[in-house]
């Protein structure tokens, strides 16, 4: 009898998938709650959403998916024993993570200049909670990418890149719901 299980088909470590699913559930619940609360005041939510900078968020999407591609390339490079190129790809991926945070910081600063805080409207409560929690994951992801660029065993890079792809995955769901659904 074979010991092969369907779990063995998952690429990488099982625990990173547990983390990915957990994070998707947490952010998914947050996004569903956001749209559920919106039912009570769709006009207010639409007006509040107009204060957001959609172009900046769109640029951040490009930045993050490009960074994700570099992290995926890094694993492939490391597996073909091109350690230097893999490390460079990881450092550039981390740098793009910093670019994402810089744009996000500019967005928060613009809101602060308009005296928009988390209790201005329920829209902004969710906006700051969800994007702030995501930004915290980006900070962690940048540190993880730099760590695995240093300790560059293929297994480490695979786990670090998977964490970064989870951050990417959350953003591609968060971005349209918070910024684009009018």
């Amino acid at each position, binding site marked *: 009898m074979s010991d092969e299980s369907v779990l063995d*088909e998952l690429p990488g470590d099982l625990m990173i998938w547990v983390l990915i699913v957990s994070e998707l559930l947490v952010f998914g619940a947050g996004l569903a709650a956001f749209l559920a609360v919106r*039912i009570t005041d769709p006009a207010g939510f639409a007006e509040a959403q107009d204060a957001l900078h959609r172009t900046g968020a769109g640029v951040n999407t490009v930045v993050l*998916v490009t960074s994700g591609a570099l992290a*995926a390339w890094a694993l492939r490079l490391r597996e073909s024993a091109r350690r230097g190129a893999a490390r460079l790809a990881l450092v550039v991926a981390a740098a793009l993570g910093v670019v994402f945070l810089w744009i996000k910081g500019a967005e928060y600063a613009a809101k602060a200049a308009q005296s928009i805080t988390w209790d201005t409207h329920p829209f902004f409560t969710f906006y700051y909670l969800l994007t702030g929690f995501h930004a915290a994951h980006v900070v962690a992801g940048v540190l993880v990418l730099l760590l695995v660029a240093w300790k560059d065993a293929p297994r480490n890079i695979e786990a670090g*890149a*998977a964490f970064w792809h989870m951050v990417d*995955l959350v953003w591609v769901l968060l971005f*349209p719901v918070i910024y*684009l*659904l009018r």
Partner: protein
Amino acid sequence: MPADPLLRAWLWLIFLSFGSTLVSLWPWPPALAALAGGLVLGLAWLKARVILSRYLGLCDAPAWRRGFGISLALFCLLLLGLYLAPALA
């Protein structure tokens, strides 16, 4: 399109991201707001599938890819329902 699946995935993600931004900026008449919302969430689902398949490597685990794809599709349908609820009330 390039032969490298990773490069192709990245180009798809850029294309889909611009697509969803364009859909949201388009001046849809109120009667078609549901269609616009559906398109935005549909594009988000496609982007998530590309990330799962190519970045996270689920293209080599078809059963898991199908499971994640169906779960995310149901989640996007839930979001679409919540988005459309005020108009249906």
